[in-house]
């Protein structure tokens, strides 16, 4: 058989080129029509995914505040050597810029931005703005330096220059607990009391991992049991599994508070049963977050597992038993490996969803249980530091992409046939 087809190909190699062209021509219109069909989807994806994500990535480097507020100052600083005290014209330009910026309402964002370089610049600028030297003053530099000697230090001006670039690494550095030291200009680690995001990142990954493991641990037997049920009953139970999806996440989370709090149902019952004397702290800590997140994400591991398990014939375990394996070993070595695809699919789904969890830890956890998304929301809503929010969001995005890449490498099947 194979020999015949091989010779057939040999005969036609000389015609291959033209055949290929003819094939392309023949299928060209078909392909164009199918492209047209999926065009709405492509446009939707572009608008709803690619553009916002691109925007977020851009925002984590975008640095418009100082460029917009102090254009002449930055221009005047161009000729400066970076070591000595800048010329008088730089000070004059600064005062002029500050006056314009005040009228245009750019002062708060300017102060905020320069404050990121060094907290002292906030007070420095506030003071300067309160008593801006008049145009007629003899020496603008002297009157500013009279307010604060910081104006005399080259590092202040270097910081303005650094903050005055159109792109900044500040947010991305901060997302990894680093900053550019205002004095030396070197990248340094944030001091211990301020460093936060690396540990939050680690915590986010860890919590997502724990939740994933718990989901697999609890979801696996449930899916197995479901797969063993006759279809009609399994469908009913599947509806039960899906039931929580019909209520909002907020309601489910709030429901857990009611159950888990000190005066809640669980503590109440356990005290009534005499199991404990004092209520257990089950909520507003890690325990509550784990319980609730596991509950909420469990269906995402049960469903793919169920789908995979439903397709595995009971004969595999029987075969292993007939070959002499103890039922447990038969299950472990003949059944479980065949569910790996379901386990990894479910686990990856849960992990990626867990990594971005926000509401549940915010409501059920303490401050030590907040995940990265909480800080994204914090910077977006509370402090309106969208650069920081974008940098943390990008961090999360990149880590998810990295993990996915690792996952696809690790799980790439050894034999091509299994991929089918």
């Amino acid at each position: 058989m194979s020999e015949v087809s091989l010779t057939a190909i040999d005969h036609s190699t000389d015609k291959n080129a033209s055949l290929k062209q003819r094939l392309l021509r023949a299928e060209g219109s078909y392909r164009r029509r199918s492209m047209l069909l999926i065009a709405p989807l492509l446009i939707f994806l572009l608008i709803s995914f690619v553009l916002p994500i691109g925007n977020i990535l851009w925002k984590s480097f975008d640095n418009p505040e100082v460029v917009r507020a102090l254009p002449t100052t930055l221009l005047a600083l161009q000729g400066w050597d970076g070591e000595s005290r800048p010329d008088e014209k730089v000070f004059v330009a600064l005062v002029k810029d500050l006056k314009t910026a005040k009228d245009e309402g750019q002062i708060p964002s300017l102060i905020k931005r320069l404050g990121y370089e060094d907290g002292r610049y906030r007070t420095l600028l506030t003071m300067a703005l309160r008593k801006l030297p008049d145009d007629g003053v003899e020496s603008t530099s002297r009157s500013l330096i009279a307010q604060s000697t910081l104006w005399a230090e080259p590092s202040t001006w270097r910081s303005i220059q650094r903050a005055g670039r159109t792109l900044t690494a500040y947010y991305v550095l901060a997302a990894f607990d680093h900053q550019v030291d205002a004095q030396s200009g070197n990248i340094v680690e944030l001091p211990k009391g301020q460093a936060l995001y690396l540990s939050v990142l680690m915590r986010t990954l860890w919590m997502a991992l724990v939740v994933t493991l718990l989901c697999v641990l609890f979801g696996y037997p449930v899916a197995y049991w479901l797969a063993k049920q006759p279809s009609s009953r399994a469908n009913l139970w599947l509806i039960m599994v899906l039931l929580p999806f019909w209520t909002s996440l907020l309601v489910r989370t709030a429901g857990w508070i009611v159950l888990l709090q000190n005066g809640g149902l669980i503590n109440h019952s356990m005290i009534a049963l005499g199991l404990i004397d004092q209520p257990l702290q089950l909520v507003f800590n890690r325990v509550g977050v784990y319980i609730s997140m596991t509950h909420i994400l469990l269906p995402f591991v049960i469903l793919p597992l169920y789908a995979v398990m439903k397709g595995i014939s009971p004969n595999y375990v029987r075969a292993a038993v007939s070959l002499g394996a103890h039922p447990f070993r038969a299950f472990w070595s003949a059944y479980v490996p065949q569910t790996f695809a379901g386990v990894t699919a479910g686990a990856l789904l849960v992990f990626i969803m867990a990594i971005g969890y926000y509401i549940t830890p915010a409501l059920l956890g303490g401050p030590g249980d907040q995940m990265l998304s909480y800080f994204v929301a914090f910077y977006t809503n509370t402090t309106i530091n969208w650069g920081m929010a974008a940098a943390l969001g990008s961090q999360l995005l990149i880590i998810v992409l990295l993990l996915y890449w690792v996952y696809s490498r690790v799980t790439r099947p050894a034999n091509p046939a299994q991929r089918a």
Partner: protein
Amino acid sequence: MSSVPPYVRFRGVQKSYDGEQLVVKKLDLDIQRGEFLTLLGPSGSGKTTTLMMLAGFETPTQGEILLDGKPLHTVAPHQRGIGMVFQNYALFPHMTVAGNLAFPLKVRRMSAVDIELKVKRALDMVQLGHLAQRYPAQLSGGQQQRIALARALVFEPSLVLMDEPLGALDKQLREQMQLEIRRLHRQLGLTVVFVTHDQAEALTLSDRVAVFNDGVIQQIDTPKALYEHPCNSFVAHFIGENNALPGTVVSVSGAECRVRLADGSEVGARASTALSAGEPTSLSIRPERIALNVPSANSLSGRIEELIYLGDHVRVRLNVAGHEAFTAKVPIADMHDDWLAGHTVPVSWFSHDASALDPLVHH
């Protein structure tokens, strides 16, 4: 049967799944060592359940199964040492061919050297030594079947169960595999219990065939006996082609009887089942036992309805005694040129080729 104690014995075995219906009603069956026994029957007849009970995956609701004289329920399924080949093979998709074959040896904690040797020998036995490192999904159906066979044999069980193992193969491959299974059975001195619904396969392979219907063994016999001397209409119909003519028993004398057919003509037949005069019966005659144009004692006239020329023989469909689907298979050499549809020819058979069986319940 014989004085040698049976290797496997089913004693009064019953099985019900739902507590209402018996899938296996009453099973008494002895299997001799070295025998190739096929359980044959339509789906739902209880043959697979019987096999699964022997394998230990189902428990009899009543009765017991003895293996080599020991009650089987005292031995856990994985300790029975029974090789099994499954429908669709059940090769572990995540293991290579070698891994699949090594599995039963690994669970028996054999040394790596022994395992390698035995795996190689088993693969050579099915002539697939070169595929050791492939995964099942990369093999053809026939190759998978051989691997499944090799895996069931690699740990040298003396009893091998096969559950419709050839069902998924095309005809050519199936016939090839049948020969292979026969060869292995003889070569290794195995006892094989084979389940199939394909009667040709059963006849090809088996020393004895147990025909199942409705949870009961209808007949258990050698292929020849089953074919030539079916004990009831079900067996006669299930195995091979069969002409059934309804009639009434006129007289019985020993193993012979006279039967009056629907058109009033009387013919002689073997009385296979206990029948007495006056009872309704169904006369069973194999198509190849029928002669046309040869007048004899049992001679009727039949009108030719249709002729199908098949090269080695000709199939003639006739209307005989009011029965329109009466078929005769006539060797080409005996064919006459004037046999045309509409012609009437004498139809005859030897009395000992016809069996008077239980009357057919018409569907």
